[in-house]
């Protein structure tokens, strides 16, 4: 299928990345994929999100890449963490609470309008 490049249209590219595509990637590969896309002006939506440890590393790597007038960081949104399934019993029952839909984009292009336990409302704009 021919790929439509961002420059071909005056719009914002959104990449929806499946859990299957991410599951065999190492943490740093995931972080690199996300940051390369976001720095390119894309909005990335992850079907399964990142683990807490990967989120921590994503923040750390993002900080090292921020530069004045070039890249001011990321906006990331997931639903609030629910701890009920993260205990021993939850893990035993195969309920992996780290899986959560995650939206990531350039900080200067996404603005969160509202967020609560069940709803995330965001405004995506051009630069």
């Amino acid at each position: 299928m021919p790929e439509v490049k961002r420059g071909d249209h005056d719009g914002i590219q959104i990449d929806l990345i499946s859990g299957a595509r991410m599951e065999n990637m190492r943490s740093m590969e995931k972080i690199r994929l996300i940051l390369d896309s976001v720095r390119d002006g894309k909005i990335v939506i992850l079907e399964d999100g990142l683990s807490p440890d990967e989120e921590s590393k994503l923040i750390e790597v993002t900080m090292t890449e921020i530069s004045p007038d070039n890249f001011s960081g990321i906006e990331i949104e997931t639903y609030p963490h629910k701890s009920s399934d993260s205990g021993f019993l939850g893990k035993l029952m195969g309920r992996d609470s780290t899986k959560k839909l995650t939206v990531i984009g350039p900080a200067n292009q996404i603005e969160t309008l509202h967020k609560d336990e069940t709803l995330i409302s965001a405004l995506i704009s051009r630069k």
Partner: protein
Amino acid sequence: MFYPHTPLHERCSEVQESRMGLLTELRDSISRVTDRLFSASEPKRIGIYGPPNAGKTTLANRIARDWTGDAIGPESHIPHETRRARRKENVEIERNGRAVTIDIVDTPGVTTKVDYKEFLDHDIGKDDAVRRSREATEGVAEAMHWLREDVDGVIYVLDSAEDPFTQVNTMLIGIIESRELPVLIFANKTDLEDSNVKQIANAFPQHETVPLSALEGENMDEVYDKIAEYFG
């Protein structure tokens, strides 16, 4: 091992370095084992975490002044005033006839974005703003590193007049829980008119929320009771 093209003195030096490396590794391993053996008696390192401007340094200073007489660092209404993790060691807190000793680590406010232009709104020149933003990014990275590697418990400070449902809070609480660190949520700034402690408690019902005003010193008795209970 045969080294056909290496002079004798270099080979000797390599063997010596290799032995030194082994000795260093052995010493480090012994040190790690003894660290674990004696860790129970050492003060626990308690990281003070939260978003920028939640009052982390004000709280750290309040605790340090109350029990040691010294402050930890400068407080300010400008975001990212704390741009390096600062530690106050051996803070001995006495509760109900027993003493609890902790090391307090005041960390820079965690965020996923830093724009130097935000500092310009606080009458700071561009060069200074760029320098502050660079230091702030380094500070946040350092804070994340401390959280993954070097703290034994967390005091999570929130401004009770602000919405707690932010991504930084969601992620940080998730990271803390995944590391199974004991955590206390401190709903700070109860002296503000818009303070809403219930909203904080509802946002993180799985954790204990303690209301306080670090600035005014309100409810500090309960704060110290909980610190002793959770981290003692």
